């Protein structure tokens, strides 16, 4: 009896194993172009969305409600799979390897996918009224090779956060306007002792390109200018050298090159950091904790000129699959309805991507500092597929400048970019 029981278990496992194998294999990894044309095939009634998890509480709730509305209004079914940010690169890559791309993928990059010819452009799936409603900045950065592929789902803009209590203790009356003032303020706060840190500088691999973007934009620098990479421009070298100076003078937290953004935020939330670059979700956390009395201001510039902000959007891109064009178009038509897109953005604590959204959010006083800067926000060159690799190189290598030579680090990154990643 016992051996029979065991056999049944083994047989069950074997079947499960085979099923898993089959799932992993799918139709097999075809070579380029395997994604198929947009016109062929029967019309698809069910499409799949792979969405990134912005928050445990809201993301899944929103997409489930959205799927229900989508079914009611259009008759199509939307399968929703929510994936954490830690895993989404790996999952999306695996799906495409196995020729099992979702119909719609929510990610922080799109240009490489457009380059590989996997995506629909706006002419095919985006209603004209929606396209004209999306903020011009985002249309510009969502356009690859003359066509608009990167449809933004939400956006964020960075701003300068400072700890009012520490500022008061250190005798500082207002947030800095220039880098020199920032450095002086950081000195005063660090001098308070007790583990207080002037400026929390995250240059670890999580998102060092974000931190550096904010600094270099406010020194008049760029990553790429008019088709040419400018990573090692004099302005950028000056910017990175300034960050090294802050680090060497111990005005930052310990080991900035090995600090991820989340750790820097934790430091600020614990009330130990005087200044940090944050965004609206950090403000939401701080408001919830009610521990730190903080202020939000435009980021100081090197020479005191007008501040610029670093904007970020994520994308909802549409994969070309036989017969899914109508269902995908219906998806975007519904998503960009103000009551959908703005509900999502509001729940997640981010910023709008449409002109109508900016108007709808205008009443939110807390968001004013970001909204004012949003239409002129500068983005990283997300419209260039090379950036998808350069970004990874920056994340892995930028921190090395804190213990090495800023110019050499940027020269190497420039070379990576010029070689196409």
């Amino acid at each position: 009896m016992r051996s029979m029981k065991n056999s049944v278990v083994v047989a069950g496992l074997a079947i499960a194993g085979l099923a898993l194998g089959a799932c992993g294999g799918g139709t097999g990894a075809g070579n380029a172009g395997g994604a198929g044309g947009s016109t062929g095939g029967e019309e698809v009634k069910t499409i799949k969305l792979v969405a990134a998890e912005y928050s445990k509480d809201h993301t899944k709730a929103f997409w489930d409600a959205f799927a229900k509305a989508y079914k009611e209004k259009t008759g199509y079914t939307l399968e929703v799979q929510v994936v954490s940010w830690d895993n989404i690169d790996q999952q999306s890559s695996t799906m495409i390897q196995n020729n099992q791309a979702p119909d719609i993928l929510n990610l922080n990059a799109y240009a490489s996918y457009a380059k590989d010819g996997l995506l629909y452009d706006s002419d095919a799936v985006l209603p004209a009224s929606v396209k004209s409603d999306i903020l011009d900045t985002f249309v510009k950065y969502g356009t690859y090779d003359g066509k608009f592929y990167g449809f933004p789902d939400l956006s964020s803009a960075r701003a300068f956060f400072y700890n009012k209590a520490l500022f008061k203790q250190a005798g500082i009356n207002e947030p800095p306007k220039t880098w020199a003032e920032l450095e002086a303020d950081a000195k005063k706060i660090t001098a308070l002792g007790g583990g207080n840190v002037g400026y929390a500088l995250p240059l670890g691999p999580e998102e060092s390109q974000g931190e550096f973007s904010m600094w270099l934009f406010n020194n008049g620098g760029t990553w790429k200018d008019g088709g040419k990479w400018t990573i090692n421009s004099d302005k950028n070298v000056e910017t990175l050298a300034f960050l090294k100076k802050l680090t060497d003078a111990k005005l930052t937290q310990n080991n900035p090159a090995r600090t991820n953004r989340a750790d820097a935020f934790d430091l600020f939330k614990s009330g130990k950091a005087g200044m940090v670059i944050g965004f609206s979700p950090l403000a939401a956390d701080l408001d919830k904790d009610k521990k730190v009395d903080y202020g939000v201001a435009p980021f100081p510039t090197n020479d005191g000129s007008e501040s610029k902000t670093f904007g970020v959007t994520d994308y909802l891109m549409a994969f070309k699959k036989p017969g899914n064009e109508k269902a995908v178009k219906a998806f975007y038509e519904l998503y960009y309805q103000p009551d959908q897109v703005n509900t999502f953005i509001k729940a997640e604590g981010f910023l709008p991507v449409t002109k109508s959204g900016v108007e709808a959010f205008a009443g939110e006083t807390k968001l004013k500092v970001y909204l004012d800067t949003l239409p002129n926000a500068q983005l990283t060159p997300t419209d260039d597929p090379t950036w998808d690799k350069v970004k990874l190189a920056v994340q892995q290598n930028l921190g090395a400048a804190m213990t090495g030579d800023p110019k050499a680090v940027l020269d190497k990154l420039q070379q990576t970019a010029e070689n196409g990643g």
Partner: protein
Amino acid sequence: MRFASAMTERTTVTPDPAAAAGSGDPGSRMPSRPSRRRRAGRIGQVHPLVALLWLAPALALILGVVLYPAIKLFDASRGEYSITGLRKGDAGWDNYAKVLAHPDLGTVLLNTVVWVVAVVAVTIVIGLALAQFLVKPFPGRRFVRWAVIIPWAASLIITSQLFVLLYDYNYGIINHVLQGLHLISTPIDFLGNDSWTMFSMVVVGVFVSLPFTIFVFIAGLGAIPDDVMEAATVDGASPWQRYWNITLPLMRPALMIATVLNVIYVFNSFPIIYTLNDRNPGYLHDTTITFMYKLAFKSQEKDVGMSAAAGIFNVLLILVVVAIYLKIINWREETSR
């Protein structure tokens, strides 16, 4: 007629049709020798097709979850992939060449050796001491043994994340205690300082490897007959002599098993290194396993094909270890006869 009688004789000798149709094992046709071994062989003997039927689930399992993925892995290692994961064409052996030419390969291999040797060696030494302690009867021994299992039962990711918090520079309890005891004046950056990172990871590796090792050793110690020990005591052997000349040699099988299995586990360990090293850029503290992962998903290469090639190298490395393990198992069977 002789032929016919032979036939009848045969059928009467081997009434089991399965056995008759089965292999030509002469032993089963010699009923005169009353050997236990022969009888066991006959009972276990079935028609090959029947055998295949019973083996089918196991074979399907091996084909489905071992062979098929291995073939896919090899296939992937010979492909050229876009950063999105799209296969663009065939790459021949380029991916292998790129892995071998990778500037950080030396660091990664050295890290792997340091990691495996340090974790396994320290685990064995501490495991031996703790096992010796846990076989002695003392009040509450059962609870201590339970407590020892806990690191084994907890998920590696959770354990690693807990250690990240313990090691933290700003609020970690380890730094807090060390500063409280005035052993250090400024906190130690356990995970961010290059001279400490590997040490900090090895500590966690040892912590999670200990339970299994200790229980292998407890079993090994339990198998040592008491009379040998008593005889040695009567002959006037000192405790240290008894340990060195009796306990350790008799523990050899347990030591071998613990070492080889730990080498395999530790070599394949992904979560500890990935979690504790996640703030550090580049490959400075990666082993071949995390190197493979980063090649596919995190590094600027972001190349599935290269990662698959690295995966093939990993399989080859671990095959060597498994071969050694099988050899040891053989050795055990021979000695236990």
